[in-house]
């Protein structure tokens, strides 16, 4: 996380003074942050802190009241910018009556990708033996793996993961743990919302703690301290 100065490359993900409310409740209050290529940002915070809203705004699927989001220098509202984003959240974006393979083929077609990309996704996430099963019959862990395969189908430059470890089995957790450093090595900008500071320290380069829709703490993930994070949570 950092601010791009003169002569520096633009951050891949650039969130500027974003505010978002749901009715009378403010979910985000003038949040600004950036994620550069090859960096992983952990977004921590208690329930209701605004982590999911921040990722949804960053992905362009929720519109902020003020502020803007840029992906690779372009406003996220532009189709070319939006197509650089991969998003895996609480909902899978998958169709229960389509099979595992049909879901990936469907999204591959929407992105204008060859059908072979669906096969690569199945292999990458160990879903080949489940390829013909309807998604509605899959376990939570398999759905999460398929959701990640969908999010990465188009090889996005910016990857946004909302609580990616929630409800996962050991195999699916391993896949996610391997995925994040792999994306970093490929020059992706990754933002991960999580409750767990230990996960953030393990996987991220930078961390921001949101409390009541505002960044309450920003620092390198390696220096995260559980007690301090908990103390910041208490201010909610």
């Amino acid at each position: 996380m950092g601010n791009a100065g003169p002569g520096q490359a633009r951050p891949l993900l650039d969130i500027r003074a974003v505010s978002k409310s749901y009715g009378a409740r403010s979910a985000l209050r003038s949040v600004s942050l950036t994620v550069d290529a090859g960096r992983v940002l952990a977004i921590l915070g208690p329930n209701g802190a605004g982590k999911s809203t921040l990722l949804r705004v960053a992905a362009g699927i929720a519109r902020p009241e003020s502020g803007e989001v840029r992906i690779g220098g372009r406003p996220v509202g532009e189709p070319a910018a939006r197509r650089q984003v991969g998003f895996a959240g609480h909902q899978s974006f998958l169709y229960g009556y389509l099979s595992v393979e049909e879901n990936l083929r469907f999204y591959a077609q929407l992105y204008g990708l060859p059908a072979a990309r669906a096969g690569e996704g199945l292999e990458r996430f160990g879903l080949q033996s489940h390829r013909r099963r309807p998604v509605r019959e899959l376990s939570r862990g398999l759905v999460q793996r398929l959701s990640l395969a969908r999010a990465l189908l188009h090889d996005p430059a910016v990857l946004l993961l909302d609580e990616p470890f929630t409800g996962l089995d050991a195999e699916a957790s391993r896949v996610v743990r391997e995925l994040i450093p792999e994306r970093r090595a490929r020059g992706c900008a990754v933002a991960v919302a999580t409750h767990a500071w230990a996960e953030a320290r393990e996987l991220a380069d930078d961390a921001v703690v949101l409390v009541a829709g505002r960044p309450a703490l920003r620092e390198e993930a390696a220096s995260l301290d559980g007690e301090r994070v908990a103390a910041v949570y208490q201010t909610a």
Partner: protein
Amino acid sequence: MSAFWVILRKDLVVEGRARDLLPSMAILALLLLAMTGATGLRADAAPAILWITVAVAGSIGLVRSFHQETDQEQLHGLRLAAVDPAMIYLAKAAANFLIVAAVELIAWGAVMIFFDIPIPRRPAALAVVLLLGTGSLVAMGTLLGAMLATARMREALLPVLLLPLCAPAVMAAAGATARLLSEAGGPVAGELRLLLAFTLLFVSVALLVFEHVIED
């Protein structure tokens, strides 16, 4: 393949497997027609009954057509893939049109049996009336279905909103159908123009506002 065809094909595959819309709409239509037919109403009431039945059964189905795009926020998946909102609307409307048209064919068969009406003498003109009447219902119903997709009372709200909005189109379609079935016959160009105008108006409004309707 364009996003339109990809989404349309997906919708039809999902409906073919889930059997979510067509059976419930067809059964409701058949029940309504059987009950009205059993009351001994004359055959010249059949066109109005047919169109009211299609509108009511259609509204029940259309309210559920967006459920498959919202239960796992699939609509956001489409938006992330930068699919043009107009393509999403048109593909959903096309899928809904095919489903409502299938219900209409079943209902038409039932009307011929329950009301003992003859085979129409101007089938091409009747086909155009059915096409445009169904088009106007589906054009507005698909938009309302999207607007109400996450509303708590959507099953009750969609018919309450759709039926008044589509009442002029339903009346025009029923009037034209009655004239095409009657012994005396008569021109239906006025009704066809009205139906075409409603269909174009509803589609245009939907294309203008759909992007805002599906925003979070």
